[in-house]
């Protein structure tokens, strides 16, 4: 593919090398358990991966789990009300988006690929983080504040595994990292900007079907450890509730099993195997619901929880 054998991370490439690779043969980036072969002629994609994927390993290989391309369609829609398509293996799995949304489209498209094809894993619509060797799975409905909480925990020293996909290795039950950018929506963007000066936040992408979206870069420590699986310790359903007092409430394993299965992309696809994996996951986890309004309180409670677990 033309990459030097000395190249380790994307930031090791010069702008010229990156631009050339991206627009011709493509670049193979490792995100956790997956190799992504990416091509694009779009300047925003170049700028996006240059900053948000700077720390990720790149490889000189023809093999990739997903071959994706983000580009303008042929014809007039390249120029008039400009659109972009997400291509997987040169097929278009979903409708185009306005060109201004190319970068979030890349992130959503990659999530879609994993959720629809990576059936060697059990995949939950959940955030996943780790601290002190304890994996925490945060299954949640949209609007629960999951991604905001995930970004806050990452910015306070937790390892980010994923903000959107809880990936469970079926043999071991361990959580698999992705360590890709965190998606924030609407008010959450300024909340995280105020929460931490260290947050590297993308420009706001407006008028998406999720509202205004920004991406928070995964911290380098999370990316560096993206090959290290984590033992699952806790399953916690977060819920942002204005003016509430942060509170952890135990949830029965039976109820949590059903909640997590309902939030899974492929529990049904895996059939009995999915049931067995989910059973082991829940059996090995302490299960809670969590209500919060202030991020600092949430971080403190999560820290205390894993500290107590670690001290055992």
């Amino acid at each position: 593919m033309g990459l030097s054998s000395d190249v380790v991370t994307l930031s090791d490439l010069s702008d010229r090398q990156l631009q050339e690779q991206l627009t011709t043969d493509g670049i193979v980036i490792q995100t956790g358990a997956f190799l992504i072969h990416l091509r694009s002629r779009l300047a925003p994609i170049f700028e996006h991966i240059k900053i948000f994927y700077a720390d990720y390993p790149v490889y000189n290989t023809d093999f990739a789990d997903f071959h994706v391309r983000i580009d303008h369609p042929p014809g007039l829609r390249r120029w008039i009300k400009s659109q972009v398509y997400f291509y997987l293996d040169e097929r278009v799995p979903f409708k185009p988006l306005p060109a201004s949304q190319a970068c979030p489209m890349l992130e959503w498209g990659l999530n879609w690929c994993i959720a629809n094809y990576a059936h060697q894993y059990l995949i939950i619509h959940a955030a996943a983080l780790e601290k002190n060797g304890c994996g925490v799975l945060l299954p949640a409905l949209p609007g629960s504040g999951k991604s905001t909480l995930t970004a806050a925990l990452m910015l306070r020293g937790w390892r980010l595994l994923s903000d959107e996909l809880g990936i469970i290795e079926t043999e071991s039950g361990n959580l698999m990292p992705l360590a890709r950018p965190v998606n924030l929506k609407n008010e959450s963007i300024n909340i995280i900007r105020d929460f931490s000066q260290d947050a590297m936040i993308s420009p706001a992408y407006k008028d998406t079907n999720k509202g205004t979206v920004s991406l928070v870069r995964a911290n380098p420590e999370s990316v560096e450890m993206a090959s290290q699986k984590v033992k699952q310790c806790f399953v916690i359903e977060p819920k942002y509730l204005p003016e509430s007092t942060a509170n952890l409430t135990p949830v029965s394993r039976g109820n949590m099993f059903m909640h997590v299965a309902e939030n899974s992309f492929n529990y049904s696809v895996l059939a009995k195997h999915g049931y067995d994996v989910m059973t082991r996951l829940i059996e090995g986890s302490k299960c809670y619901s969590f209500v919060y309004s202030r991020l600092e309180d949430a971080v403190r409670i999560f820290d205390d929880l894993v500290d107590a677990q670690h001290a055992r």
Partner: protein
Amino acid sequence: MAEYWVKEPELSLHQQQWDDEFVVYNASSGDTHLFDSISIKILSLLESHSMSTDAILSEVNKTQSDELDLFFISELLESMARYGLIKRRCDAV
């Protein structure tokens, strides 16, 4: 006409118990259910023979501290039938 309940034939059920909750996977349908001990008791009762609603109610109440009524058991049996776990059988008297 006498009405009985029977377990669906060739059901393949797998269950995991946590305290008084049972997560049951029906490999025949791919459905997963969260049951309490009463539903599990009913499946156990119908494992090898058919029973009437009254007989099921009588057996279940032997293990209940608060006696259940016919309406409750009837509703529960109907829901288990909708899940494809049991079915109603009517025999001429």
